[in-house]
């Protein structure tokens, strides 16, 4: 390192990379993330990309971003406002500048700030000259030009060289935040092993960016973020979709049931199908169906046949699967429906996050059709909830609707990898005994037996028509129907005795309780801990079980004078809790396709408690 450059210690940093959707920003962000994970920081990420694969170059609607928050201590969110933005073109600047901290640094690819690109971005005047960036620390880097210069002898075309500029930016950021470049060098070698020219060029661009940081007069300071003190163990960085997928592979191994996934590609759930398609050597069968309905009904067929059967989708897909979920309720088969929620209604905001499918999950079927509804609360938690979904579905012979969302599905965080042997087994027994068998007989959990085809002597018929308890024969008897409706509801309700109680954290005896469910856990936790650091007294409880609710829910809610329920919808959980427990709930909502900022929730808390005492 050049003598004279100051190294400044920081506790945490939020970085955002932004450029055209073809600029490789997701890749750049992912590489920075993986390297940061290896350094040992705690981290949380927020990819944000448009639904269009390659929107017209230079326009604001084609801007793709990747945000990463990393820290020397435990963190919960990808950060409210970036400390530094890398803007590859004027459109990227325009879209992102409003999110930055007041004194944030903006690294700009000055070569892209020409009249044409400014016009495409909708700038009437050049923001670098009109004073609109006052208060920011703007660093103008000739990023394209430097990349071209570094690669002039690479043998690549001008277009190919231009594509390498994200590696230049990455190298520069590695230098600026004192990250090692070796992990990315290794990755380039693997990734481009069949195209040595590109491998060499990307490597050169990365190194050029790194040395540029070291040698340029533009940067006078370099930053350092010490490793976080995480619990002992072996870690990897993991996204929610990855964690969910390998969670089900693990559930398959732990239950001894072959995994069957029926799925139709849909954003933001497709990555689960991609991941599970790789694990054929675990006997995983992935069926890319002709539509959402075939995806779930094939899974129902697989469940009938004795597989650990799952179907993955997003809100519009759940809408199409609705009738089939009812069939799984009626036939009492273990089926897991995964809904990676996105902005709705209809096609809505395919790449943006939302929590607006809760009502659909709990009530969205014809007839009285209760299913178990659970939700994961962080990317890594998607692994745990996969195991939990498999346990509940097979133990109670009931469909489980598993809610994730775009935010935790695509976001990532360090995950302390569990030892395979430490993961509890999932006990599953198929019925084989002929004596006394009836398809709708009940065990102590009200579950019916799982008697799969191929078992001699247990041939039986199931279906969507109402049936008599025990015999399973079709029945239109009025009393029987009421009995069966109540029985199916009771079976689900009883599960409250088999799930963890709602845990209250923070100031348990405070007047104010902040609640939420699923993917907002990080933002709420961060907000509550900030409020408490600032002198506020606040308690927090987070729901991962939405149907049935934990047994102590009413007791918890009744303890607090003021309950704030933060949700990314119009107050769906609040409605359920209000009607179920007759408590007053202050619904705090956001419906912008974006996660909560902790500061937004913290401000709400502050307003409710009437300012901090400290």
């Amino acid at each position, binding site marked *: 390192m050049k003598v004279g450059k100051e190294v400044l210690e920081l506790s945490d940093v939020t970085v955002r990379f932004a450029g055209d959707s073809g600029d490789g920003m997701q890749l750049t962000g992912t590489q920075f993330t993986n390297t940061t994970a290896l350094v*040992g920081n705690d981290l949380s990420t927020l990819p944000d990309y448009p639904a269009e694969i390659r929107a017209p170059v230079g326009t604001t609607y084609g801007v793709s971003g990747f945000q990463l928050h990393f820290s020397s201590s435990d963190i919960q969110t990808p950060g409210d406002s970036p400390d530094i933005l890398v803007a590859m073109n004027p459109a990227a600047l325009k879209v992102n500048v409003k999110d930055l901290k007041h004194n944030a640094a903006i690294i700009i690819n000055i070569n892209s700030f020409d009249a044409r690109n400014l016009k495409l971005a909708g700038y009437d005047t050049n923001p670098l000259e009109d004073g609109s960036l006052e208060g920011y620390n703007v660093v103008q880097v000739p990023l394209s030009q430097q990349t071209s210069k570094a690669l002039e002898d690479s043998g690549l075309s001008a277009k190919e060289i231009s594509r390498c500029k994200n590696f230049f930016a990455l190298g520069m950021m590695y230098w600026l935040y004192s990250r090692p470049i070796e992990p990315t060098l290794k990755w380039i070698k693997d990734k481009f092993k069949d195209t040595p020219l590109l491998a060499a060029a990307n490597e050169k661009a990365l190194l050029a960016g790194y040395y540029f940081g070291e040698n340029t007069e533009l940067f006078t300071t370099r930053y350092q973020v010490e490793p976080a003190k995480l619990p002992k163990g072996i870690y990897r960085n993991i996204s929610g979709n990855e964690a969910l997928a390998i969670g089900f592979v693990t559930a398959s191994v732990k239950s001894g049931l072959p995994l069957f996934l029926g799925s139709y590609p849909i954003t933001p759930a497709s990555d689960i199908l991609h991941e599970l398609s790789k694990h054929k050597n675990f006997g995983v069968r992935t069926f890319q169906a002709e539509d959402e309905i075939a995806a779930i*009904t094939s899974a129902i*067929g697989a469940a009938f046949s004795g597989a650990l059967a799952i179907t993955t989708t997003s809100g519009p897909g759940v809408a199409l699967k609705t009738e089939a979920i009812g069939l799984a309720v009626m036939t009492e088969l273990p089926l897991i429906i995964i809904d990676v929620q996105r902005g709705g209604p209809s096609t809505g905001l395919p790449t943006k996050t939302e929590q607006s499918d809760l009502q659909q999950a709990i009530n969205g079927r014809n007839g009285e059709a209760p299913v178990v509804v659970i939700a994961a609360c962080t990317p890594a938690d998607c692994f745990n909830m996969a195991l939990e979904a498999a346990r509940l579905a097979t133990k109670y012979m009931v469909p489980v609707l598993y809610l994730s969302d775009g935010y935790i599905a695509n976001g990532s965080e360090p995950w302390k990898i569990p030892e395979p042997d430490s993961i509890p087994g999932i006990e599953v027994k198929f019925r084989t005994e002929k004596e006394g068998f009836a398809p709708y007989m009940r065990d102590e959990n009200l579950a019916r037996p799982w008697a799969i085809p191929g078992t001699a002597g247990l041939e039986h018929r199931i279906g969507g028509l109402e049936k008599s308890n025990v015999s399973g024969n079709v029945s239109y008897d009025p009393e029987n129907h009421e009995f069966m409706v109540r029985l199916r509801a009771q079976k689900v309700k009883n599960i409250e005795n088999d799930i963890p109680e709602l845990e209250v954290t923070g100031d348990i005896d405070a007047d104010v309780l902040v609640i939420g469910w699923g993917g907002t856990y990080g933002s709420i936790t961060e907000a509550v801990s900030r409020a408490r650091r600032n002198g506020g007294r606040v308690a927090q409880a987070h729901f991962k079980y939405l149907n049935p609710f934990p047994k102590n829910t009413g007791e918890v809610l009744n303890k607090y004078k003021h309950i704030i329920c933060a949700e990314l919808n119009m107050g769906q959980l609040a409605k359920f809790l209000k009607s179920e427990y007759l408590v007053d709930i202050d619904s705090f909502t956001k419906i912008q396709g974006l996660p909560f900022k902790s500061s937004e929730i913290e401000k709400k808390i502050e307003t409710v408690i009437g300012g901090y005492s400290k």
Partner: protein
Amino acid sequence: MADQIIETKEIKLTAKDFATDQDVRWCPGCGDYSILAQVQRSFPDLVGIKKENIVWISGIGCSSRFPYYMNTYGFHSIHGRAPAIATGVKVSRPELSVWVAAGDGDLLSIGGNHFIHACRKNVDLKVLLFNNRIYGLTKGQYSPTSEKGKITKTSPYGSVDYPFNPAALALGSNATFVARSLDRDTKHLQEMIRRAAAHKGLAFLEIFQNCSIFNDGAFDILTDKKTKDDNVLVLEHGKPMLFGANKDKGIIMDGAKPKAVEIGEGKHRIEDVLVHDEFDESPLLATLLAHMTDDPSMPTPIGVFRQVTKSTYDGDVEEQITSVTSKKGEGDLEKVLFTGSTWEVN
């Protein structure tokens, strides 16, 4: 898993072994009774298939009650989805013999998408279409196989819909076995059921079935003693396509079109008559034959239109699992959990 619980037994079953204790609830005179009887009569002859390994899947409609009356594993599901459910059963348990019972509304209207894709993928399913050209269970609306102009409750001035030709649709969707039979031709129907069972791959069997309430007599011309000989062409592999009581009529090619002609002195020679080749790799002639049903001047063919051998979807899935496993080794959870870049915190 399945291997451990399947017992082997050699007792020869009878039709009765396939009947359940449920009262059959179709209308008197319904063609479904005959189909059920022919299935129960032919199933004891299915070689190498144990009763406990047979699964019947249906959707919604009169014919979809079928699984309740078969003493095998059965699933009466939701409208149109039987082929998709059956696909899930077959893919997860390829050793099972999986059968679909469906009506024309169920399979070709609401379930049309699943049907063509099951054909395309060549999933090893046996699909029996009970084609009565009407909606029975909803009490008499026109179906996707009803003839144009049909007067029903929803078409008091005549239906303006063109119908599907199910056999042609199956051929167009690359089904590897396509056959047709009649509810009242019991011997022929039994033979077709056995042939479908023996086929490895998707076997589609269209059965013209009389609905005695809402479309009575729709197929009389094909089943009535007086008219059937002149109106039914029985397809048999390697045999000339002759019909008529005295087998004095035949099918020849007139350019690219099949044509019904009289055979005999001063008429057409028997050598000119088309000889049926059900193993023809090309589906073209089979498709022309299937479409003869749409032409009132032509007899309606029954029998196997086409039968070709192709790897099955479920077989290929299995094969891929085996080959990937032999290449990568049995799945090791530790490897999957600890994959990628990991780091240790002490």
